[in-house]
C-alpha cells in the first residue's frame, strides 16, 4: 500500500493497514449482499403462493416503487414533502393520455413518456420550491399538488375531470404477453420495472452524488461552506425522484385501465409518506417493508371493517413513530443497523 507516505517509520504498517481498511469500507459497502436477494425472492414466492392475490400484489409493487422514489429525496436528501402524489399523478395522466388521445399503447415506451413528463414537472417545481425547507416546503408541495388536481378539473375536456379517463388499455408486453384477469402478467411487469428502478436508486445512493445528498441532509450549512451547489443537487435528486414516481403512476394507470383525479389526493401523498416511515426511511428497503405492511393491513382491516380500516393504520403509525423516538426501540426499528447489508445511513 502507500506506506511510503508516512513520515514515521514506526507504526507504518499499522497506518497502512488502517488505510487499507478505510478504503475497503468505502469500496465494499455497495457490493450486493446475498441477503439483498431476499425481498425479490419473497416477491417471486408470493407469485406462486398467492396466485389469487396478484392484483393486490401488483398494486403493492407500485406503491413500493412510489415509496422508493420518495426515499431518494426524503430518506437520503432529507427533503420532507407532502406533495409527492403530484408526480405520481402526472405520470398516471401522461401514460393514460398517451393511449387515449394519441393512440400509442405500447406499455414500456408509455412508462418512458410518463417518466419524462413527471421529470419535467419535478424539475420545474423543484427548481422553484427547493429554495425552501421545513414547514414552508411542506405547505408549498401540498399546494402544488392541489393546484395540479384543480388544473385537471379545469381542463376536463382533456382529462375527463373527476370522472377520469377510462379505457387505458395497453398492448401486450413486448408485443407478446397479454394480461389476464387475475393480474399475473401485471404483477411480473411491475416487479420487473421495480427491479430496474431499484437498481437505479441504489446506484445513485452509493455514488459521490448520493454521498453529497446525505451530506445535505446531515448538515446543509457545512455543505454550503464546502462550496456545494446545494440547490442544484436537490433539484437533480428531486427530478429523478419525480420521474420514478411518474413511472409508478403510469403503472397504476396501465394496470387499472383507468385514471381519476383522485391520484392527486392528499391521501396519496400521505399514504406513501406513511409507508416509508413505517418501513424506515433512508435504507432503500423501507418502501418494501412499509408498502407491504400498509397494503396488506389495509386489505385485511377493510375486510373486518370497511369503514374504519384507517383507524388501524393510524394506530400502527402512532406506535411506530412513538416507539421510534425511544432509543432502545429505535435500534430495533432501524432494522438497517441490524441487517448485514447496505445500510449505512
Amino acid at each position, binding site marked *: 500500500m502507500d506506506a511510503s507516505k508516512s513520515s514515521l517509520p514506526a507504526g507504518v504498517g499499522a497506518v497502512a493497514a488502517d488505510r487499507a481498511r478505510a*478504503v475497503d469500507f468505502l469500496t465494499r459497502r455497495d457490493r450486493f449482499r446475498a441477503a439483498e436477494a431476499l425481498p425479490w425472492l419473497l416477491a417471486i414466492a408470493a407469485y406462486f403462493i398467492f396466485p389469487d392475490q396478484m392484483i393486490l400484489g401488483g398494486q403493492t409493487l407500485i406503491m413500493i416503487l412510489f415509496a422508493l422514489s420518495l426515499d431518494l429525496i426524503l430518506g437520503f436528501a432529507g427533503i420532507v414533502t407532502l406533495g409527492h402524489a403530484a408526480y405520481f399523478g402526472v405520470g398516471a395522466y401522461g401514460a393514460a393520455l398517451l393511449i387515449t388521445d394519441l393512440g400509442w399503447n405500447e406499455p414500456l415506451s408509455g412508462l418512458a413518456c410518463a417518466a419524462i413528463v413527471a421529470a419535467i414537472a419535478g424539475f420545474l417545481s423543484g427548481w422553484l420550491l427547493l429554495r425552501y425547507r421545513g414547514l414552508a416546503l411542506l405547505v408549498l408541495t401540498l399546494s402544488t399538488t392541489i393546484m395540479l388536481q384543480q388544473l385537471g378539473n379545469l381542463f376536463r375536456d382533456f382529462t375527463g375531470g373527476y370522472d377520469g379517463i377510462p379505457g387505458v388499455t395497453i398492448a401486450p408486453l413486448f408485443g407478446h404477453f397479454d394480461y389476464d384477469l387475475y393480474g399475473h402478467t401485471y404483477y411480473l411487469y411491475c416487479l420487473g420495472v421495480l427491479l430496474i428502478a431499484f437498481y437505479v436508486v441504489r446506484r445513485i445512493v452509493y455514488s459521490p452524488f448520493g454521498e453529497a445528498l446525505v451530506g445535505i441532509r446531515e448538515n446543509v450549512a457545512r455543505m454550503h461552506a464546502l462550496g456545494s451547489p446545494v440547490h442544484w443537487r436537490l433539484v437533480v435528486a428531486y427530478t429523478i425522484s419525480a420521474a420514478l414516481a411518474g413511472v409508478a403512476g403510469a403503472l397504476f394507470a396501465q394496470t387499472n385501465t383507468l385514471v381519476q383525479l383522485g391520484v392527486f389526493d392528499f391521501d396519496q401523498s400521505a399514504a406513501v409518506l406513511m409507508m416509508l416511515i413505517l418501513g424506515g426511511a433512508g435504507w432503500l428497503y423501507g418502501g418494501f417493508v412499509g408498502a407491504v405492511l400498509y397494503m396488506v393491513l389495509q386489505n385485511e382491516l377493510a375486510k373486518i371493517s370497511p369503514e374504519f380500516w384507517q383507524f388501524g393504520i393510524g394506530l400502527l403509525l402512532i406506535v411506530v413513530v412513538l416507539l421510534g423516538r425511544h432509543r432502545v426501540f429505535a435500534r430495533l426499528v432501524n432494522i438497517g443497523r441490524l441487517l448485514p447489508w447496505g445500510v449505512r445511513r
Partner: protein
Amino acid sequence: MSAPALEIRNLYKSFGAIQVANDINLALPRGARHALIGPNGAGKTTLVNLITGRVRASAGKVLLDGEEITSMSQAGRTRRGIARTFQVNQLFRNLTVLENVYLAIGERTRVCNRLWRSAGSETAVIDEALDHLQSLELVTDARRPVRELPYGRQRLVEIAIALAQRPRVLLLDEPAAGVPSSENHLILDVVSQLDPNITVLIIEHDMDVVFRFASRITVLVAGAVLTEGAPDEIAADERVRSVYLGERREGRRG
C-alpha cells in the same frame, strides 16, 4: 507590489439597529498569520461570516487576491479558495470521518456531480482524504462516525475538512474552543504547522496561543477595529488591556 491575499475595505453590517460590523478595514498579505481578538460579542464570528459570504455585508468590499468577491455566493467564494472552520463543530456527525473529508474533496473536485459511479471507486478522492487524515493522525478513526469521537478529535476533523478544501485563505474560528486543555496542544500543533503559503486568520481567546502564533493582531470591539499591530504593540496598548486583556490576565506571559 502584489495585492493582499485577503482584503476588507470599509465593511459594514447591521442586524436591524445593531451594528455588528462598523467600517472594518483589514489586509492580509499572502501567508499571513493574523489573529482577530476582542471581547465576546465584538463581531469576530460575524466578520468571518461576512468574509465567507454566509452573511452578506450591508456596505463595503471583500477582496481576494485583489479581486472583489463581495457579491459572490458562499459556494463561489469557497471555489475561489476561502475555507473556514466553525466555532461550534459543523460536521456530518452520523457519517464516518473518512466520508466527512471525502465530501470536502468531492465537492472541491466536482466528483460529487457523478451519480452513476460508486463513491468507493473514486480512489483519487479516497487517497487524498486519507492523506489529510494521516497528517492529522486520524486514520485510525477513519471508519468511525464522527459523533463517536471525543470532542478534541472532532475539532481535528473540522480542520481536516478545511484543509481538504485546499484553501488559499483559511479562517479559523476558535479552533481549540471547547477542547480540554490537556488535548488542545494537538490542535495548536496542527495550526502552527500549517502550510506557510496559506493565509490564515484566526479567532482565538487564549492569549498564549495568539501571541505564539500570530505575527499581526487586530482587536475588534463592538463591531469596530480598535487597533491593529504586532503582538508586542498590542500587549503594550493600554486601551486593549482595559477592554480585553485586563479581563483575563496581565497581558503577555513569559
